[in-house]
């Protein structure tokens, strides 16, 4: 085990997989000579050279399409967007090509590709740079969507993603890049997709979260413990496939659930989880499932307003108290 930062864990996963498989390469804006906009790919150009660490001009749709084309004839690209916000201009490539090629070719083609970038809010970066894009992508059959909260999961899940034969979208967070944690040195340690992780067991309420919101949920759980409420915190990690079993089992124990995520409340992964739980565990529920989300407005720049819009500990607590009928 080595203690490393989240960004280093992602880098380690990419470097190990590139050592292991010559078909894997990294492409994106500023990933090479600049060493990565968030320094995730620092040192990779020096290690692998310009053939396998490619600086792309500002052409998200272009280099996304090129990578999908390369993947469908056998390479295994890792595409880095400077942030997931910029994937919007490549949305057609992801929706119409990455996700559809396999089915529309009658199963002749596969697209083994990873798209990765920081996702959701950062700090006062305004309305165009704060999107939680997992909700858009998890909607699409043919894609897989992961959102790790810890360095260990970042490494293990990214390695699994790179070895997967399907398009996998990997949601990182600028706010998590510096967090530290113990990470396995085993180059073959993979974290499976579709497995949620109970990061804090509890019996009174399930708080379901992913990415940065897992840390917010844990803070909320600490607060709740002071009030005598034992909250179970579940790190979903994998949004598609989704680990229904762990979620249902948790709610079967706690009978109450709050989904805490960044992104707007209209539709989205939180609504999907709420739907599944009410269908699969209806008789276990003692309260409606609530969601602590980003408010239903574009992200404002003003620091106080931004903090009001982003879901924080207070909003999670408010929702937990509501499902406990303690408000």
């Amino acid at each position, binding site marked *: 085990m080595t203690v490393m930062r989240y960004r280093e864990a992602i880098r380690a996963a990419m470097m190990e997989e590139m050592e292991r498989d010559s078909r894997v*390469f990294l492409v994106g804006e500023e990933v090479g000579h600049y060493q990565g906009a968030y320094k995730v790919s620092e040192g990779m150009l020096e290690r692998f050279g310009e*053939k396998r660490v*490619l600086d*792309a*001009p500002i*052409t998200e*749709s*272009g*280099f*996304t*399409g*090129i*990578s*999908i*084309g*390369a*993947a*469908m*004839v*056998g*390479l295994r690209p890792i595409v880095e967007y400077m942030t997931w916000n910029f994937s919007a*201009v490549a949305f*057609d*490539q992801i929706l*119409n*090509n990455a996700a559809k*090629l*396999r*089915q*529309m*070719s*009658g*199963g*002749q*083609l*596969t697209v*083994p590709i990873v798209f990765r970038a920081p996702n959701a809010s950062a700090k006062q970066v305004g309305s165009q740079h704060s999107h939680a894009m997992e909700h858009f992508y998890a909607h699409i*059959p*043919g*894609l*897989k969507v992961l959102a790790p909260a810890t360095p260990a999961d970042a490494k293990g899940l990214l390695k699994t993603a790179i070895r*997967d*034969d*399907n398009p996998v979208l990997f949601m990182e967070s600028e706010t998590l890049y510096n967090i530290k944690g113990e990470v396995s040195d085993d180059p073959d340690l993979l974290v499976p*997709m*579709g497995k949620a992780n109970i990061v804090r067991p509890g019996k009174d309420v399930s708080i379901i979260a992913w990415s940065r919101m897992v840390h917010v949920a844990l803070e909320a759980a600490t607060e709740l413990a002071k009030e005598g409420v034992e909250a179970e915190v579940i790190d979903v990690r994998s949004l*598609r*496939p*989704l680990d229904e079993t762990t979620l249902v089992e948790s709610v079967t124990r706690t009978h109450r659930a709050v989904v805490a995520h960044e992104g707007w409340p209209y539709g989205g992964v939180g609504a999907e989880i709420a739907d599944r739980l009410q269908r699969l565990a209806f008789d276990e529920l003692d309260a409606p499932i609530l969601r602590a989300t980003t408010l239903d407005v574009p992200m404002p720049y003003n620091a106080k307003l931004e903090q009001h819009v982003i879901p924080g500990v207070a909003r999670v607590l408010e929702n937990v108290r509501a499902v406990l009928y303690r408000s």
Partner: protein
Amino acid sequence: MTTTLPKSDELSLDLYRQMHTIRRFEEEAARAYAQGKIGGFLHLYIGQEPIAVGASSVMRPDDYLLTTYRDHGMALARGMSPRAAMAELFGKVTGCSKGLGGSMHFFDVEHSMLGGYGIVGGHIPIAAGTAFASKYRGEDRVTLVFFGEGACSIGDFHEGLSLAALWKLPIVFVCENNEYSMGTPMSRTMSVEDVSMKALGYGMARDRFFVESVDQVREHLAEAIERARTLSEPTLVEIRTYRFRGHSMSDPGKYRTPDELEDRKKKDAVLRARAELVDEKGLKEAVEKLEAEVEEVIADAVRFAEESPEPGIELLEATTYSGEFAR
């Protein structure tokens, strides 16, 4: 031209057979469409056959080809069987894409036919990606990608060309300029009529001609393919052509006059090829023999398509993801 390709009566007959096969295939497809046996969209290639046949005849079997939704001609020229093509139109499991793709999504990986694509211009970066993969692996394989002049206004056209020129990819971009972007003449879609001039801004080689014969297509494209194969440099080739049918079967073509259409049909390169074989080379008997054979091949394809089974629901999830379905 620097390239001189061998010519023989045998080759001319074979090229005519291929063009005639495509035309008869599509005439029968139009009939089946009118009878309600083919659904959705059906975009006919009639009038543009010399381009598909000429291009494929100077490609290596392992050279990749990608094209638009007007893809029947390209697929047949690449070597897809008329049976697999017709069955796909009929939505049958024996079709090239198992009946899941339809008219717009013909795929035949065995013949390096990497698809018909339904989003205008979206396949251009995909094609550049297949060329990227060839270069990455050190292969001397070339990609040809076809699109209409309607695609030259959308971003993916420019991003694909820009990146192919920047990264020196072994690809030939072929604009089949049939003068109409659906119902809009090029005078109302482009500020510059000469599409090949778009190459200048990317420092890319270019070529442009008004198609008169399949031999002419062969000569021009052989040169561009050679440039891609030996120098790993892209070329933009504009081929001025004309489609004799509407944009799709639902288009009555009211945006052009009957006189214009009749005038262009007099220049039909397929009929001219036939006249040359019959009148100038005295090969009437051979031409009539091959035409009779083509009739049987097409009739067999229609019979095969009609008699084939439909795809079962078990294909749906299996072709959406490689491996386990991600839900």
